[in-house]
């Protein structure tokens, strides 16, 4: 039996509302690395709709869309951006990652993550944004 999640903090509610208006794919994680929201552009990556799935755990995300380091990535891109945001409370940006979407399309992407921290310095979760990579 699953229990109904408690109400999210207003900070996370506002993060979700912001994400729902953005063009870039956004995943919103809680502190356990569970995806508690993803926006419509991210639905294209995962191949499922948030209204159908609700929150999804990290293993399921990894099954739906595979993210791996581009072989041409430099040493700065080898850190795990989500772990950096949630465990070190630091923003991270990785320039060369390969994303395999649920529809098997492969893309080179940049990934930005940052922690969500409230006024009382409580870590609430993290936001991850995907940017399709374009060579300058």
């Amino acid at each position, binding site marked *: 039996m699953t229990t109904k999640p*408690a*109400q*999210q903090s207003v900070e996370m509610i506002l993060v979700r509302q912001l994400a729902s208006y953005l063009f870039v794919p956004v995943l919103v994680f809680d502190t356990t690395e569970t995806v508690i929201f993803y926006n419509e552009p991210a639905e294209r990556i995962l191949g499922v709709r948030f209204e159908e799935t609700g929150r999804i755990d990290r293993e399921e995300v990894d099954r739906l869309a595979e993210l791996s380091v581009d072989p041409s990535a430099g040493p700065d891109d080898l850190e795990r951006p989500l772990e950096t945001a949630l465990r070190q409370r630091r923003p991270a940006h990785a320039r060369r990652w390969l994303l395999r979407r649920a529809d098997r399309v492969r893309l080179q992407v940049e990934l930005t993550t940052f922690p969500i921290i409230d006024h009382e310095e409580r870590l609430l979760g993290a936001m991850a944004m995907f940017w399709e990579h374009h060579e300058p």
Partner: protein
Amino acid sequence: MKVTPYGVRGSLAAPGSATARYGGNTSCVRVTGPDGTVIVLDAGTGIRALALELPTTLSRVDVLLTHLHMDHIIGLGFFGPLYNSAMEVHIWGPASATLSLEARLRRYLAPPLFPVLLRDLPCRLELHHTGRSRFSIGPFQIRAARICHPGPTVGYRIETETSSLAYLPDHEPALGTRRFPVDPEWTSGFELAHDVDLLLHDAQYTREEYPGHAGWGHSTMHDALAFGQLAGVKHLAPFHHDPGRDDAALDKALDAAVAEVKPDFPVTPAAEGRSFDLGSA
């Protein structure tokens, strides 16, 4: 508990014969416990009259501020107990990310905005930060949580053994939503209001007025009713009436919203002096 509004108007005081029935004072509500404990919710212009009616035997009063917008603190400097050295006054409210509650209040209670300094008030004054917290005052169990409104803002849930009240006078839970409400998990203020006996909730705008005021931190009457439905409240008192709406216009707008939404609970627009007796206390 007994809940008595002394100010129900939003944004700006609106005195005059056209608003006399609901009242023109800004947000202020007295909550009285079964043992006589008094809590004051917000310090709008209504707090002056509230202070005049406090029992002379009272030695402690607690003022719970939801946020520090002017209409919610402008009466603070005119709150009689602050000038009584025999009184113990506790002010509860949200700090910001960089300033304590005291530092934030000093911006108002200091020249050039006010002649008396916070530190010079003769009462025994204690300030308490309420960002996201639970605390007790006499018979009241109180929960504070941040809610959707510009700047640090909390709502309060106040409970005794027999009754419950939620006070969310400035609240825009529908901000940014395409449909409202959808899911309790993603609705600001839900846990504060869930199943309460009485909800005092922002209902400043009509649906037609809202698009020009989205993001200002206030709700439509329809959204207040829908929020009450989602939270399963037993009674809703629309609050924070628009200063530009006279009594007749307020009746008309609220009647129309209620007729359309058809809530399954009574709706009584908050009015100065019209008390709600909750529970057996």
